[in-house]
């Protein structure tokens, strides 16, 4: 008889779960959208979707930040209603998804270099220096090249500890794409843009998981430098952010304005996505030209199916519209770059193809 109580519990649990199933089907009119992908824009997306769902009682949007790669995989396997990726989709990935995808840049972000160096508060890093640091070629803080750009700073005779991402990430992709675009040395030593780059294997290159891991490691390691998303550095109130020299030879701090300038100097390709009527909105700001442009900026994309049932398509279009209008306003405070006007117009036009 000892086993009866547990049977009862099981029976009650079964009844309860049955009740829950019936109650959830009661809201049959609700449109439920699920998405997955990039973690880089997760803070802003989750704010959008939360606010959007609150304003629309009949639409619910769930977004899982699994990483760009996983998002694209989910999209290809058709397990989600939309996906998000920091690296858009390559032609190969598009082909795998049957060339049925609409790629819309929804927001953009910057990557900043944060450092920990006693007594040096506004470090300037020239264009020929920071790729060398990350290629393992410049190894001391008092290297003449760094000293030349920072005549007033007291640079210590200390080894540079470079902190990079241990996990594979869109941030690494954006950062290494930029470095590979401006430095041949870097391209040779580390390679093209990659979500998990093969950094030099030395004692002075350590890896830490996620933005917070990098930030914590740098905070605790004198003489270290690393890269994090601008939004993350901004929200955590980070002070020591290096100023980088851009293509025009100017030192610009990261921020919404310099980011917008970087995006403004980048044009979208004129063609269409392969074997598809959808305009190609994949543009990379690997080395933006403008005088006021911050050098490391990148769009991040949402990916949609061109065809789905009408209710879902309508809801998706509404989500995009919300992101382009109200959503852009929260970009700056969360450390993202609001899309330039002409990009918003273009994205809105293409979003009408979600049917």
């Amino acid at each position: 008889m000892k086993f009866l109580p547990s049977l009862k519990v099981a029976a009650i649990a079964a009844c309860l779960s049955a009740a829950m199933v019936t109650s959830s089907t009661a809201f049959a009119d609700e449109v439920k959208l699920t998405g997955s992908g990039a973690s880089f824009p997760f803070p802003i997306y989750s704010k959008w979707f939360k606010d959007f769902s609150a304003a629309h009682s009949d639409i619910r949007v769930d977004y899982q930040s699994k990483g760009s790669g996983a998002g694209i995989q989910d999209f290809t396997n058709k397990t989600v209603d939309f996906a998000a990726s920091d690296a858009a989709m390559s032609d190969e990935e598009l082909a795998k998804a049957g060339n049925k995808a609409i790629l819309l840049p929804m927001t953009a972000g910057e990557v900043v270099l944060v450092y920990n160096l006693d007594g040096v508060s506004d470090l300037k890093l020239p264009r020929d220096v920071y790729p060398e640091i990350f290629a393992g070629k410049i190894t001391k803080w008092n290297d003449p090249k760094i000293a030349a750009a920072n005549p007033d700073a007291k640079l210590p005779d200390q080894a540079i500890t470079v902190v990079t991402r241990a996990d594979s990430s869109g941030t690494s992709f954006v950062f290494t794409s930029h470095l590979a675009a401006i430095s041949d040395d870097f391209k040779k030593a580390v390679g093209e843009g990659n979500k998990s780059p093969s950094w030099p294997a030395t004692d002075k290159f350590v890896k830490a998981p996620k933005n917070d891991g990098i930030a914590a490691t740098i905070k605790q390691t004198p003489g270290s430098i690393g890269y994090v998303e601008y939004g993350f550095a901004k929200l955590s109130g980070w002070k020591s952010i290096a100023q980088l020299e851009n293509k025009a030879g100017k030192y610009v701090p990261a921020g919404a304005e310099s980011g917008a300038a970087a995006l403004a100097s980048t044009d979208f390709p004129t063609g269409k996505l392969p074997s598809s009527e959808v305009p190609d909105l994949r543009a990379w700001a690997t080395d933006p030209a403008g005088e006021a442009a911050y050098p490391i900026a990148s769009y991040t994309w949402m990916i949609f199916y061109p065809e789905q049932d009408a209710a879902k398509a309508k809801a998706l279009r509404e989500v995009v519209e919300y992101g382009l209008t109200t959503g852009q306003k929260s970009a700056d405070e969360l450390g993202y770059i609001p899309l330039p006007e002409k990009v918003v117009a273009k994205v809105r036009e293409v979003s009408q193809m979600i049917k």
Partner: protein
Amino acid sequence: MASNPFQQAVSAGSVTKPPSRGDYSSDTLFRSVAYGSAFLIIILMAYILWEIGGQALPAMQKYGFGFITGIGWNPGKEEFGILPEIWGTLYSSLLALLIGGVFGISIAIFLTQDFIEARLAVVFRTIVELLAAIPSVVYGLWGIYILIPALRPIANFLHEHLGFIPFFGSELSGPGMAPAALVLAIMILPTVAAISVDAFRRIPYKVKEAAFGMGTTRWEAILKVMLPTASSGILAALVLGFGRALGETMALAMLIGNVDQISLSIFSPANTLASLLASNFPEAGTLEVQSLMYAAMALLVITLLVNVAGLAIQQYTVRKFEGKK
């Protein structure tokens, strides 16, 4: 109750009773549940192996044994090798076992061999066991914010003055093997201490009395009688602790530096298999997932080998010191 064979054995009017039908059925039920659970564990293990092996198969065919001896994890070029990770896993776990083992056994001796009052010993034991309840990520943060800054001056002093010894061959810049192994040692300490305490407790008091009766000093009794007698239990504690160290993920991912290199220096950054898996899974492509599964298989095999070796040593010591079988 004619079918009950015990009925005949009981004389009329006796106090003893044959087992009732209820006793029989609950006995059968218990036995089948116990057998079932035991089989379920084996089936679960086999299923995990089957699943991981199945997913790892393409990578196994592609890379073969070179995967185990290769250096560098490079998804961009589709080159995968886990020798540095295997080295890092074993090295960090061994260091942790060395430190955690010495402290764990010392704690066990301290708590069981009448050094402090029994009630106080319970308090101490509870405190040590509380260490097991601290989440891994908290250990990691503690390591980053407190241990590494505290360790840095000592490490750099050692490197400067004793740098010719390979173990101190590099500077500690931040994360590295030493902080990782130290945190790991603290993490396995409760396991080692708790099981060792039980091993000492299991020794009948008579054994110690006999030792004292033969004229041993307190330390002779502890080191020459109690320790060997408890050795099989202590070994079990060490094997469990080692297993825990091999599989630990989050704290190590935060502290070890995740660099694919093989270095004897305890101040160099390194990498472990579990940390590799945790860092790379979220964004891995198809081939990388297969390779990660292959790495997971390697970790499973290492853990299995360690456990088998531990078991073998344990049986040997039981024969040698405890005189059984």
